């Protein structure tokens, strides 16, 4: 999971005007309003037009992970509807030079559309230039090469709704503790765009929407391995915490372990991203109340749809946002499917029976 956060940090290049907290929404790099991914779809006529054209696609990712697999799967299924083959898939291993080589190599296969996560705005600007010159339709995930213009240089940027992820975590927390009480806030103490946005959205939402909930303890964390120590210290000072928000699932392992060691079944945990240990605790009625995830499969689907619209010469939205998803005991099986497009781990499914 840390891998994803690092990935996001790369994506972070901090170009987005950030979630606009006053308006409580995620906005694009040039302040574009967000288009929900669900509205990026193709009609049957569009699909019919695309079929038989023999278009080809390339997926140029920054790394290989659960997340990129789910995004790829979403893209593959959507492309398949339009009869588009994925001819190239690459993993730049976070290396900007390698990403440049991957792009050049992919272009030899003459793809009509490229879906990619540009590693960072500065290095990717030159790297994607040839693809733009070749007339390849570009759909970016999360990040935009510096100076690129919507319409002429790229079709769309698709990203997670980071604000919604943090907000839904706050809503889930409020629900779990009955709308009032004391909570601890364990945030990612590093300048990583994705975690920072989500953490901030959680805090803002609690402060703004839930006047009866007080954040009584705040603790930054940079090394997930230290989560247990930090949580134990927090519980020592505030034994009566009703809930703890944890910035992502890996440090939540440590928090969970601290609660178990303290024999505390009462304090609820809400964290982000799907992970087996937390989900298992949740379905067994333990401390974990909810997991908030992104819809990686939907991200991929929307990217492919935007790319195909662009191939058809249709208008494409500059900034597309895929929704967040709150997973609780009740929807854990479906949640896994919606987020990662695969079955929840068997242990979780068994325990949920």
């Amino acid at each position, binding site marked *: 999971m840390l891998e994803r956060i690092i990935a996001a940090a790369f994506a972070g*290049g901090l170009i987005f005007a950030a979630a606009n907290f006053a308006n409580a929404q995620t906005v694009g790099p040039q302040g574009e309003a967000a288009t929900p991914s669900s509205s990026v779809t193709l009609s049957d006529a569009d699909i019919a037009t695309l079929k038989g054209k023999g278009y080809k696609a390339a997926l140029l*990712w920054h790394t*290989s992970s659960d997340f990129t697999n789910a995004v790829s799967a979403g893209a593959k299924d959507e492309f398949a509807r339009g009869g588009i083959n*994925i*001819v*190239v*898939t*690459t*993993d730049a*291993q*976070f*290396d*900007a*030079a*390698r990403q*440049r*080589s*991957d792009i*050049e*190599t*992919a*272009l*030899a*296969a*003459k793809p009509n559309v490229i879906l990619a996560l540009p*590693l*960072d*705005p*500065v*290095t990717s*600007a*030159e*790297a994607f230039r040839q693809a733009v010159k070749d007339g390849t339709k570009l759909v970016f995930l999360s990040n935009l090469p*510096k100076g690129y213009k919507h319409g002429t240089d790229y079709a769309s940027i698709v990203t997670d709704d980071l604000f919604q992820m943090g907000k839904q975590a706050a809503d889930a927390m409020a629900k779990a503790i009955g709308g009032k009480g004391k909570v601890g806030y364990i945030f990612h103490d590093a300048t990583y765009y994705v975690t920072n946005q989500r953490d901030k959205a959680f805090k803002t939402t609690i402060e703004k929407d839930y006047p009866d909930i007080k954040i009584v303890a705040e603790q930054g964390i940079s090394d997930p391995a230290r989560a247990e120590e930090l949580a134990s210290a927090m519980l020592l000072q505030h034994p009566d915490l009703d809930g703890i928000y944890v910035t992502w699932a890996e440090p939540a392992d440590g928090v969970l372990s601290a609660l178990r060691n303290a024999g505390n079944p009462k304090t609820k945990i809400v964290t982000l991203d799907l992970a087996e240990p937390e989900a298992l605790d949740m379905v067994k009625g333990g401390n974990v109340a909810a997991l908030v995830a992104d819809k990686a499969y939907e991200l991929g689907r929307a990217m492919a749809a935007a790319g195909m619209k662009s191939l058809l010469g249709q208008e494409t939205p500059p900034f597309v946002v895929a929704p967040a998803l709150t997973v609780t005991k009740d929807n854990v099986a479906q949640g896994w499917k919606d987020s990662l497009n695969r079955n929840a781990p068997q242990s979780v499914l068994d325990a949920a029976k």
Partner: protein
Amino acid sequence: MSNANTNAAVAASFAKRINLQQYVVYFGFVAIFLFFAIVLKDSGFLTVRNLSNIVLQTAPVTIMAIGLVFVMSAGEIDLSIGSTVGVTALAAAVTINQYGLVAGVLAGLGAGLLIGLINGAMVAYVKLPSFLVTLATLGLLAGVSRSMTDLRSVPVIHETFVGLFGSGSFLGIPSLMWWTAIAVAAGHMIYRETRFGAHVLATGDNARAASVSGINVPRIRLTVLMISGTLAGLAGLLYAGRLQAAKYTLGETDLMTVIAAVIVGGTLLNGGKGSIIGALVGSLMMGMLNNGLILMGLSVSDQMIVRGLIILTAVAVSLREKNR
């Protein structure tokens, strides 16, 4: 009948004389090329643009490989080259933006030279094993490059620099090819034709014997690591020119590729024997492998598995034959 026997004997002795095993890398290169040329004939592999891309993409790796041939021939290793690239590229980018072309180039190459000097001094005079010294500097430099610009990428907007080290060309040939050609030619000359080259090999073959015969072994060790550092600096400049930006991650994934290129190219891991031309072909082979496996449409995991198996085979064949 006897005629045929004589012919076979002549062929056998000829094969022995030219030591076919030495040419494993060339056979491997041709075999892989032909395989991709046939399998990928409709996927753009054989286009001029794709083939020239392979050469351009491998330029930094080739140049680092030349340095490593010297280091390994002397019986040492330099694990810090990948991290050196990030430091030198950032040093060059920051300096160019503030003080211009010449200062930037000197900063990049100078940083590489300095790193090589530190590595070399620790190995030659403090008498530490190069594996441990450069393993330590590998980590140290990765930290340095991260802190230099606080993880930020630095754009390089100097047109002349970008032309010289990146997207430019001279007499219709891209500058990255020029750098590769110059480095290979100079490296080959020094390695094969100079006394220094002979001393490097003698040191790697048997350091004590070399020392007894009057070779200044510590100085050879220092010099090869300085060559390696400086060439890593040049590789950093090429990356910065090619991407028109520098970033701390540049070069970090290159170490294994460089080592594989050098070993497949016929340089012994423990010294005494090597080939600059072999390293060039080894590097091109690695680039071609990456390129072809991507164009075959393999999934990322499959690309890694197949690449690993091919490298393993190539290394097994080249090393096995040489130790016989």
